[in-house]
């Protein structure tokens, strides 16, 4: 894609109409303008018929300004804000499958999972699935730790975010 993946990471939070085609028009706009999506998550919000879309992108201030304006221009996008990392809670969830052929590995993995405040959500005779939640750094760190054990599969949700305190990206 056109843009380089350099620069700061920005979290863009948008309230959008919760109906078919909206994700298409949003992602199509990103593709069309050459903005690189790092992660994108979308799900119901607290408001009826509205969904919250969280996009992280890397770039400079000028690019992010364009992203926000181009998003706002889409008819089905109701509100857009850039979340300040200082005052934002961000979370990502990952499911990590590790092959645990011997019991030593198995107990090590379970120990690490506890340290990372994760959960073992599936146990088979030769593998475990761990659920881990946190900011992206924490998840990266956990995955790095699992590599020597025999990391089999990783599924990550991408970042979702809310501003702290009473600040809000609600639709007024």
């Amino acid at each position: 894609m056109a843009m380089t993946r350099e620069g700061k990471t920005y979290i863009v939070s948008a309230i959008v109409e919760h109906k078919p085609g909206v994700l298409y028009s949003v992602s199509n706009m990103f593709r069309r303008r050459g903005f690189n999506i790092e992660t994108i998550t979308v799900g119901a919000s607290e408001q009826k018929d509205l969904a919250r879309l969280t996009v992280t992108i890397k770039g400079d201030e000028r690019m992010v300004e364009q992203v926000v304006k181009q998003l706002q221009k889409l008819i089905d996008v109701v509100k857009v804000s850039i979340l300040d990392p200082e005052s934002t809670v961000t979370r990502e969830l990952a499911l990590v499958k590790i092959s645990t052929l011997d019991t030593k590995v198995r107990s090590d993995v379970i120990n690490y999972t506890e340290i990372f405040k994760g959960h073992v959500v599936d146990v088979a005779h030769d593998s475990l699935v761990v659920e881990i939640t946190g900011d992206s750094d924490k998840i990266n760190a956990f995955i790095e730790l699992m590599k020597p054990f025999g990391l089999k599969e990783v599924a990550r949700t991408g970042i979702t975010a809310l501003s702290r305190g009473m600040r809000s990206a609600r639709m007024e």
Partner: protein
Amino acid sequence: MVKMTGAKALIESLKRQKVEVVFGIPGGAVLPIYDVLYDSDMKHILMRHEQCAAHASDGYARASGKVGVCMATSGPGATNLVTGIANAYMDSSPIVALTGNVPRAFIGKDAFQETDIVGVTTPITKCNFQIKNAKEISKIVNTAFYVASTGRPGPVLIDLPKDTQTEVDDIEFDDGISLRGYKPNIEPHPLQIDKAVKLLVQAEKPVVIAGGGVITSRASQELLALAELLIAPIATTLMGKGSIPENHPLSLGMLGMHGTITANKIVPEADVLLAVGTRFSDRSTGKVETFCRDAKIIHIDIDAAEVGKNIRPHVPIVADAKLALKAIYDRLIKSFNKKERSLWMKRIQEQKKQQAEMENKDGMTPPHLLVELRKILPQDAIITTEVGQNQMWSALYLKTYKPRTFISSGGLGTMGFGFPASLGAKVACPDVPVLDIAGDGSFIMTEQDLATSVSWKIPVTVIVLNNSVLGMVAQWQRMFYNRRYSAIDLGKIPDFVKLAEAYGAQGIRVGSPEEFVKAVKMAMKSEVTTVIDVPISSEQNVFPMVPPGAEIDKIMIG
């Protein structure tokens, strides 16, 4: 509430939007709608190609300021509209395109003549809709017209699966719309107006750039009043041509790649630049990195996304042009002591004089013919153009005096636009002469709608500046590719006089400027469309020209 079919609800909704005419072509997926049209008083003009239906609705919209409407069947009918929709999108023209589609149960099954036209047109419409049931048609039509015509105007598409057209339901025509995510910001922010006023008061060499937004927001008077107060000369973009009378002493003509020498020399000398309703396209700015580098820039546009996209202004004003210009004017008129600008005005007059001396206009050359043409046209005559040299010659040499009288495909540069657009313009303004300045290559692309113009008695004049080549391509090959002419020769095909006659139109070939003037006079009186074939040299270049990527004042003149 009234029981009726979706098709009937559609036509009733269009009537409630005061639609006078629909340009279209029927087909399987819109049969129920055409059945309603059979005994409706809604005027439908049968075109000969859906691209022309879209361009005609666009020309109608640009000439009248109202929303144009076009219609096509599913699949190929819908995809044939695409060029016209993209064209309207690039030039911010308000049209509503209606397409039929396969019945709801067949959508997504690749049924016969099914195209995902909503998917296809997502990036080239302001928004689009697929109808889910007959009940919602009225509200969606209202919404479509509202979105198309407000803020920065543009095309909206409504796709109607066939069975939503036949479905009978209780239909309610409330005029409401529901759009949480669309609130065009039209009032200027007072703080930004303050900043703009401050800059303009201090300016020594102010310049205005007027784009199509000035015409859209009907801000010509406000713009002229402000420019006269400031004694600021005005350059227009191609889309802004007509926003001010080009015989006004402050008019510099068009800016950009094929701009006038005066505009391209004066604009870079500005210390304060007031850009209104323009998106700083590459064709207007030349090398954008250095464009007006030393000027303080005030940018007024209703589309926030255009402000800061290509040029970062010192004072961004996201607002309707008319309101913003008026706000600036009202502030200035109180405090501003008219400045002595004798030096600045002298500089501009000098530049204009220099330009006049360099222009040599005689013989069977487009500059000469267009100057002669202007002399015999009423001020409110509407000119459309095709694309290529014909377009740039028209922009440079055919002075325009009124908004909405110069209609050209700016952003997309669509060959074949001018002729169907002229038909739409003539339908909108039947009492003024409408002329399409064409190239031979462009006219061939949509010439079949001569049939529409003859059978519907929509008389326009097509002036084919016939150089027997794809002239603009030839010019670039001549200038930048060592005269290696590749695929530009059109020969003397077709014989445009015979072509016109074959459609029942009038065809005239002219051999001298005098014959040309005579033919145009005859054409404007004719009750049938006239094609005037004007053979010209294939070697002529359009000058002045700024090579692509160069700074705007690096002008080549021959």
